[in-house]
């Protein structure tokens, strides 16, 4: 059930009516039932995967919490009769005990993800290296498996770390894992962020619901008017690489960047809006990433919940693990303080970006994409002294609007260039195509009508241009506070006129129905 399908809109309408009709104490149960209906819509057999993750994580977390509680109680009871060393030893022993269910659950669920998502990638590499002809398994990928697995494992790690106790209710935990607006493409929520808002009772709040609907409509606009219309040209450019080289590759680069942004942020707008309609507050996943002035900032503002997940559950643990601490010590001794302390940080960064690439897809293009991002971040870091020197020498330059615009443009171009690996999904082909930008010299395509041979008419390009301009204006307006809040302060006729324009734009200019291929959200596949 795609968010943009009529079935989903009908499903949402029924859920909405029931949600505010049932007694409030049953609201979370309704959300749970709705979430499973939504999930089963893709194929009832897929429920087995999410139920396995839910059940095992809930059991393991409960087990860990129970052991932690027993250990804490025992320690409290015997505190007086134990020395500091004994208490430390007892704690270490306790940690070891809780580690067993923790690791078992972690390995099981990451194993499921690995087998389902990466087996064919592994087989293709084995076939490639050893010249074997092993058959591909072609597992059907359960909807949102990367998202709900990461969300569940984040919860398990937090419980293991003693950040909060495990959820007692299996139903409530199942809702945390499967909450239908976010199960498909995130955001990857943290239990302590989501639990309270998800389980508490929500009275009918007109303003909240109105804001939620506005956010949903805005998501529809981005997805249907901009992303899915651009998709036609992007597909044409990407699926026929031999026909579209040189300047066309540059065009594909930028069009894909805009399409992905409109698609993913549109999907997240819908997700957050839908949750808001039910009174549930989800964390933001984007913060105007295309306004970033450097790569590091970009990654703090793009797919925020994924970035923080990798930071908290992979980067930090790796950075402080024993082998890394030893490496840190050794490198500082051998290479000196300045360089030596950077080695473990960069190694942790590289590992995180390798995993990030792999998380996005089981193919080398995603891994290379991750490593290129890592390279850009490290190079930027290494250039810090130069930037500092430059700004010290020319203090006024850095403060000008034009310099900031240059920084934003540079980051956008860099990120778009790296993201092209996502398009061709073939590393050598991607580098070849990018190489033609510098050799082909067919810059006339922007003026000779070639753009009209990409499956989009002049009218389509006009809609895209206006759509992108509107998105830009909304982003600019959003820098100084919530756009919906600002809108709510406008006189009623102005407000309603804007709602009308947005709604009618989606209805009329949206790329949906017969004649348009129903396009999945790009991030659904992750």
């Amino acid at each position, binding site marked *: 059930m795609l968010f943009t399908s*009529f079935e989903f809109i009908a499903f949402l309408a029924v859920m909405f009516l029931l949600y505010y009709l049932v007694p409030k104490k049953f609201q979370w149960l309704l959300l749970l039932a709705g979430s499973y209906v939504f999930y089963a819509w893709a194929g009832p057999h897929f429920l087995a995967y999410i139920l396995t993750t839910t059940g095992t994580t809930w059991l393991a977390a409960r087990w860990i919490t129970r052991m932690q509680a027993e250990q804490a109680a025992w320690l409290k009871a015997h505190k007086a009769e134990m020395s500091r060393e004994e208490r430390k030893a007892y704690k270490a022993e306790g940690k070891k005990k809780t580690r067993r269910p923790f690791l078992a659950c972690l390995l099981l669920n990451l194993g499921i993800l690995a087998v389902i998502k990466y087996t064919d990638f592994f087989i293709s590499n084995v076939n490639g290296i050893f010249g074997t002809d092993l058959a591909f398994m072609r597992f059907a990928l359960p909807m949102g498996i990367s998202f709900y697995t990461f969300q569940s494992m984040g919860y398990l790690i937090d419980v293991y770390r003693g950040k909060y106790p495990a959820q007692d209710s299996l139903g409530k935990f199942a809702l945390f894992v499967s909450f239908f607006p976010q199960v498909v493409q995130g955001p990857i929520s943290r239990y302590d962020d989501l639990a309270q808002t998800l389980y508490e009772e929500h009275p009918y709040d007109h303003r909240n619901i109105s804001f939620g609907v506005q956010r949903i409509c805005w998501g529809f606009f981005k997805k249907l008017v901009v992303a899915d219309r651009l998709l036609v040209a992007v597909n044409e450019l990407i699926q026929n690489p031999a026909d579209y080289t040189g300047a066309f590759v540059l065009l594909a680069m930028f069009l894909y960047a805009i399409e992905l942004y409109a698609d993913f942020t549109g999907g997240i707008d819908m997700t957050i809006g839908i949750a808001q309609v039910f009174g549930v507050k989800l964390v933001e996943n984007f913060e105007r990433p295309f306004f970033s002035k450097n790569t590091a900032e970009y990654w703090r503002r793009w797919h925020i919940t994924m970035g923080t997940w990798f930071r908290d559950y992979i980067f930090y643990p790796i950075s402080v693990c024993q082998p890394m601490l030893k490496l840190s010590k050794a490198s500082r001794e051998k290479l000196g303080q300045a360089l030596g302390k950077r080695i473990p940080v960069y190694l942790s960064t590289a590992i995180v970006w390798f995993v990030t690439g792999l998380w996005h897809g089981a193919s080398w293009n995603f891994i290379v994409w991750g490593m290129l991002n890592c390279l850009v971040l490290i190079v930027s870091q290494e250039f810090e002294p130069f930037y500092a020197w430059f700004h010290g020498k020319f203090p006024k330059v850095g403060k000008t609007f034009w310099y900031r615009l240059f920084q934003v443009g540079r980051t956008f171009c860099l990120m778009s260039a790296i993201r092209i690996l996502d398009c061709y999904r073939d590393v050598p082909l991607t580098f070849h195509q990018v190489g033609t930008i510098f050799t082909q010299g067919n810059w006339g395509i922007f003026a000779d009508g070639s753009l009209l041979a990409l499956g989009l*008419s002049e*009218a*389509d390009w006009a809609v895209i241009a206006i759509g992108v301009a509107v998105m830009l204006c909304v982003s600019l307006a959003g820098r100084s506070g919530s756009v919906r809040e600002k809108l709510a302060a406008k006189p*009623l006729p102005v407000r*309603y006129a804007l709602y*009308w324009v947005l*709604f*009618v734009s989606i*209805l*009329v*200019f*949206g*790329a*949906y*129905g*017969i*004649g*348009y291929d129903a396009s999945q959200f790009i991030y659904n596949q992750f």
Partner: protein
Amino acid sequence: MKKKRFFTVLIALCLLVGSLWFLQRLLMPKYIHDIIEGRLISEYYDNAGGNDVIFVGDCEVYENISPITLWEEYGITSYIRGSAQQLIWQSYYLMEETLKYETPKVMVFNVLSMMYDEPQNEAYNRMTLDGMRWSQSKVDSIKASMTEEEDFLSYVFPLLRYHSRWSELSGEDFQYLFQTKKSFHQGYLMRVDVRPVTSYPSETPLADYQFSDTCYEYLDKMVALCEANGVELVLMKAPSIYPVWYDEWDQQMEEYAEEHGLLYLNFLDLTEEVGIDFNTDTYDNGLHLNLSGAEKMAHYFGKILQDTYQLPDHRQDPEVAAQWQEKADFYHAMEEDQYRELEEYGYLKSYGGRNPNEE
């Protein structure tokens, strides 16, 4: 304050619904010049009632029989509820719907659609279904007709289907926003030009000639519907030589008609009796008849209908005669205009003809 807010919201809702209704009307195809067949079904409602014969079926009825000739020669009042590639379930539901407006004495079903046992084409579905007024028959017809890519909601709100026409809007869409053009003669689409038959189709052997259970099911329903309403059902196969009408199919229709006591006329076997000359009586190599052919068909078929079912001659009824005189005047005026265009341009410029210089 609450009252004010209530009325504001109410007015906003009314404006929203009104603007959507307006947009829907604007964006829906008007079928004024190019594919005028899209207007055939909706034109019936202005002419419903008082018809003794109703024809249902695909282009083989709306291009091959002239109701005005039936009137002028026999005083038979008739209407053709035809549409492009009308499928048998669509014909059935149109019959069912027609019976809500009038009870004719005879209903004639053209059997070519027996060859299709599943939904075929969204564009043709639209031309048949969009023009129908809302009723249970329309709902059932939509459900039976939808291809996999279609959804029911877009029939309820055609804006969802036609929204992408915004970039194709022309003056025609505004001109015919709240009005339409009269182009048909009791559901008959007139063409006076001639394009003779130059070759006959070769009969590609089929793996299976048996009509499907689905088609028989709807044929049975037609029989039952007509029986229940005291209407005589006649089966016909128009004298179109494309697509091929196989002997094996004809045999099945003959057997069915015999079994159910129905009159079945295969005009492909009666071309000589009708007097059809495929050098002069078709405008597209034998796919459809032109006016000359359609009038010959009406002349021949009208006699059979009148003799077999004792259809009254309404020409003696002044009120009916006056109404039909108007229809006949429009018919002859168009006939004259088509001949004028043919002479002036060499093709039917305003009536869907193809400019030979552009071919």
